[in-house]
């Protein structure tokens, strides 16, 4: 039984078809990345999984229960960081936990430190740089207790090194807690470095264009990106994507 499965999902806005017969699933503790052209419908997909939108057609199942339109089943990091402007960073990152009843300030403070935001615990979002806000939103989703985490371009505003740090940290959390992760990114290397599988979406209306199972062993080391194998994979996916645009 897969952790999450989408079966023949369709979604239109007005007369714009965005998703068309989209089906895939994620196993328990699997790390799946989604890549696809800008505007293809990745964020919309997350909104559907999160229950913000109802699919026009098709089923979204978590374990075996239908979660079409059901909210709160996933931990989510939106593409725009969406921090509450009247909360400090510390209060913001604990929001996800808070909604489900349990707060762990100690854990939150540790996470903030790991994300390189120490000293900003009590700052307001307005006082942070773009990348710092993104990291805060990332911590918030990591602290939420749900077993499936959906991350929408979590590291797009980070420099390569901070991004690498965050990736490694994400992997370590994931390996430790074994949660399922659905990850949207535009960075193919990032997808390759992190994922068990990569799903390539076509441009609008989005369909699953290809699925790649990434064979690199875990735990993965940073140096893996320099291997021949990695480059070969990168080209493969690159070509798959290029075919579409």
């Amino acid at each position, binding site marked *: 039984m897969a952790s999450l499965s989408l079966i023949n999902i369709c979604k239109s806005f007005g007369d714009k078809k965005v998703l068309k017969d989209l089906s895939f699933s994620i196993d328990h503790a699997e790390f799946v990345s989604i890549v696809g052209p800008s505007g293809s419908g990745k964020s919309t997909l997350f*909104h559907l999984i*999160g229950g913000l939108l109802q699919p026009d057609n098709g089923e979204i199942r978590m374990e075996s229960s239908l979660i079409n339109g059901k909210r709160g089943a996933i931990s*989510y990091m*939106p593409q725009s960081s969406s921090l509450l402007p*009247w909360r400090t960073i510390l209060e913001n990152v604990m929001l996800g936990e808070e*909604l*489900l009843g349990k707060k762990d300030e100690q854990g939150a403070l540790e996470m903030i430190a790991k994300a390189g935001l120490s000293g900003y615990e009590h700052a*307001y*979002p307005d006082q942070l740089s773009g990348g710092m806000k993104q990291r805060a939103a990332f911590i918030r989703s990591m602290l939420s207790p749900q077993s499936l985490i959906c991350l929408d371009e979590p590291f797009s505003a980070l420099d390569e090194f901070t991004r690498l740090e965050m990736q490694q940290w994400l992997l370590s959390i994931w390996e430790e807690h074994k949660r399922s992760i659905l990850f949207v990114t535009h960075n193919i290397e990032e997808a390759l470095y992190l994922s068990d599988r990569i799903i390539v979406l076509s441009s609008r209306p989005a369909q699953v264009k290809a699925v790649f199972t990434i064979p690199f062993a875990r735990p993965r080391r940073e140096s893996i990106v320099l291997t021949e194998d990695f480059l070969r994979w990168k080209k493969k996916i690159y070509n798959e994507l290029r075919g579409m645009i």
Partner: protein
Amino acid sequence: MTAFRKGWRPVSAIILLFLLWEAASLLFEVPSWLLPSPSQIWQEGIAGWPDYRYHLWSTIRLTIVGFSIGTIIGIAVAICLHLLPKLRDTLYPLMILSQNVPIIVLAPLLVIWFGFGVLPKLIVITLVCFFPIAVAAMDGFKQTDADLMHYMKMAGATKGQIFRKLEWPFALPALFSGLKISATYSVMGAVISEWLGAKQGIGVYMTLASSSFRTDRVFVAIFLIMALCLIFFAFIILLERWTVRWKTKGAKNNG
């Protein structure tokens, strides 16, 4: 909102106004029963203090109680109507209607129904206060940022949590906008309610002064009412600053 920090500006404007007024009184020899000069009003204000202090206290008490009730009801109504859209559809028009029953006509009915006690007076103040608060708060709730709302919903926040953690803080500035308007009206509401039949209060003092042609006392009453209003307003502004201080603290480079 720096109005009160930079107090010297309005104060000097007011002083200027008074000086002009005094000068005009002297110049055109306006009879004092028509329009007393500021100095005459001031004298009466000092001399009459023992007479009107009880009236003043009574009005202050009435205003505070009435405004508090009005605020609570206004907020409660806004919350209920916001959380229960069907109820809103049903009651919102009625609420607007409630604002249009002229108080002067309602007054006899209120007295007939509730006697001469404090209840009909509180009803009047409440009626005056709750509406701006309720409208402003409801509009505030409605305008919550869509991105934040999406996040909260996806994160599985219940209706109550969305309200408490998102809509409420988001609507606070709008709510304060309504509170300011209401605070301004509350004192007037109290004075009007005293015309409903009261034994003391600035409203009574003013009617008595007016019916015995003591224009100077009428003006003392007007200035007392104004002073009360300003104090209330200032209090709301302080509260606003203290409550939504993240706004000023967070947006430092909002040059």
